[in-house]
């Protein structure tokens, strides 16, 4: 609990989040250490950090997930703390424990808190004990089919069957009709078995038209916990968030206050330290239930930073140093509206297939109310091994309507060539009626997919102008080849001229 200034932080991550963490460290005068795999020697976090060390082959289990290698670098570079970012080792209790054993401060919660929230059923029990509402369903792992059928009978359809060790949608089944119960149950269990080596599941009430609402919390080592209000994350595709905003367009002050209180209670139930997120599911009548806790920084944390005016990474570091939180709950408030769009390297017209590759050219949007957190640069090759997220585009404005207009402007300015991206798809989301009206839930993308994937209308001339630009570019290349060859030819006689011409016509 004693205060100890952190002087050097190792960032056990890559991509935009590593760059974002280094930025805050730099502002605090803290030295930074990057780690990189074979695929990442040219990555921005390596270039931007004060120091950088190689930790292994490209696949993440041999590098970014290797606890031993990361600890080794931390010792070699004399880092006194490790920031895990999100993903990779960020919610790994073993890693948090190992850091503690090695006397390196893990910037995040204790291994006990991670474990307490990591297993969904344990978390559920803890929440029930803490008085936080949970979705009606089982509190024990169900390993027996008959038991499962009985529970489903009690809760009533529709229900969701989820692998207890699961994540990423694996071992998950929605059951709406009596006839699907047995096959869904068996399907979920066999998928869970093969994915996680554990076929136990839990069963819960399925919420129709659900909203995914999460609360940011911050807790220090002195027992102070505050929440930084909600984020609306219902724009999802296959359980992957695509757009987030705060405040939520469906929220009201009473429910916000109530949820905030529960979020704080949830964090306190596991003696949480640092930044974390309590995820809730909410129906159209604003009934809400605890879903899970993410014991780390979220991808979408910047919208909270913008609306509340807090640098969450700096607060994480200050808490890790043993400082008390610099604000109380009543000091915090939401000002204006923020939206984040995640820019993925993917081909939205071809089943959202990932599209790694070389960035020919990138122009990032700038100006009033725009923040762009990315890591790629012109000439950089996005590797095939990691996440397809290129960057996060965050806008702020006084009102939600203005924020949407600003996001459209920023997406219009955002130019990435060389790889396919989701920018056009995101523009369509901003243009969709349901989003503009704030009337959407987690079915939004599914419901609006046709609109979101529709071809936009082209200006009468734009195809012809594209042809003209191509013509000019090709002719210029042709000319350049000719000149190079003629140049050589002039100096070395007429045989060459002959060759040069043939060459130009034939080769290009």
């Amino acid at each position, binding site marked *: 609990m004693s205060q100890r200034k952190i002087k050097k932080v190792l960032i056990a991550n890559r991509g935009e989040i590593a760059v974002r963490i280094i930025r805050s460290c730099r502002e605090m005068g803290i030295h930074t250490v990057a780690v990189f795999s074979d695929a990442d020697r040219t990555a921005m976090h390596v270039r931007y950090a004060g120091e950088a060390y190689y930790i292994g082959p490209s696949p993440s289990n041999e590098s970014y997930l290797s606890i031993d290698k990361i600890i080794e670098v931390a010792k070699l570079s004399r880092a006194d703390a490790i920031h895990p970012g999100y993903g990779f080792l960020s919610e790994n209790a073993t890693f948090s424990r190992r850091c503690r054993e090695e006397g390196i401060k893990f910037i995040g919660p204790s291994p006990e808190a991670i474990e307490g929230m990591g297993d969904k059923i344990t978390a559920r029990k803890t929440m029930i004990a803490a008085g936080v509402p949970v979705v009606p369903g089982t509190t024990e792992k169900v390993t027996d089919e008959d038991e499962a059928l009985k529970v489903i009978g009690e809760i009533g359809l529709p229900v969701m069957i989820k692998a207890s060790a699961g994540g990423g949608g694996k071992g998950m089944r929605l059951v709406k009709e009596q006839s699907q119960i047995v096959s869904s149950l068996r399907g979920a269990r066999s998928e869970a078995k093969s994915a996680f080596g554990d076929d136990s599941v839990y069963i819960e009430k399925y919420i129709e038209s659900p909203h995914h609402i999460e609360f940011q919390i911050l807790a220090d080592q002195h027992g102070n916990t505050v929440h930084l209000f909600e984020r609306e994350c219902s724009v999802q595709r296959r359980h992957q968030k695509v757009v987030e905003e705060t405040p939520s367009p469906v929220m009201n002050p009473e429910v916000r206050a109530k949820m905030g209180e529960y979020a704080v209670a949830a964090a306190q139930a596991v003696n949480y330290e640092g930044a974390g997120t309590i995820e809730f599911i909410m129906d159209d009548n604003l009934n809400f239930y605890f879903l899970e806790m993410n014991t780390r920084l979220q991808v979408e944390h910047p919208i909270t930073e913008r609306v509340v005016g807090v640098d969450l990474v700096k607060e994480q570091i200050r808490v890790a140093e043993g400082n008390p939180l610099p604000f109380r709950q009543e000091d915090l408030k939401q000002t204006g509206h923020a939206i984040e769009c995640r820019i993925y390297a993917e081909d939205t017209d*071809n089943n959202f*297939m990932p599209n790694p590759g070389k960035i020919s*050219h990138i122009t990032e949007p700038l100006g009033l109310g725009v923040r762009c957190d990315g890591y790629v640069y012109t000439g950089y090759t996005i590797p*095939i091994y990691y996440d397809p997220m290129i960057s996060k585009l965050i806008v702020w404005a006084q009102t939600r309507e203005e924020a949407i207009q600003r996001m459209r402007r920023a997406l219009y300015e955002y130019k990435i060539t060389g790889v396919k991206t989701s920018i056009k798809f995101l523009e369509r989301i901003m243009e969709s009626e349901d989003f503009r009206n704030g009337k959407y839930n987690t079915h939004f993308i599914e419901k609006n997919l046709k609109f979101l994937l529709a071809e936009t209308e*082209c200006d009468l001339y*734009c195809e012809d102008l*594209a*042809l003209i630009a191509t013509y000019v570019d090709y*002719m210029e290349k042709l000319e350049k080849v000719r000149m190079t060859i003629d140049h050589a030819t002039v100096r070395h006689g007429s045989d060459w001229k002959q060759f040069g011409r043939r060459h130009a016509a034939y080769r290009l």
Partner: protein
Amino acid sequence: MELELTVNDRHAKVRELKREGNIATIAVDDDIYEVDLVKVGNGEYSILYKGKSYNIEVIESTDPKHYSVNTFYFSYNIEVIDAETRYMQSREEAGGNHGENIIRSPMPGKVVKIPVNVGDQVEKGQTVIIVAAMKMESEFKAGKDGVVVEIPVKEGDTIDGNQIMVVIE
């Protein structure tokens, strides 16, 4: 000089009629455009036409004759057709009669599994290769009934975009 360009199913003949500095008069088939055109970066063009300002990015894709062209809202694949291309096309069309099915990788990635061997009889829709990129696996299926005649990649290979992976005849 006139060039023949294709975009989607359209064949267009483009030629420059006049040029003074940035100001060019260019015919696209029967339409005449007087444009103010200037290159502002590597493959980036700014075009003013009838007062409107257009930004067009022209990027070489697989080779100097294949372009990926972006206007602000649209993306086109444009190909330059010359004698060589025409020859290749006629050959391919001839080859097309044999009904070859070439499966190419749409993106860079890593070959995870090839459940077929050269010589295997496969059915249309049968998975012939699985490629992983960015934590996502994609299955590629046979486009027709036939025999696998070529598999120029192997499991574990890192592959580029547009690389031939399986050929079915």
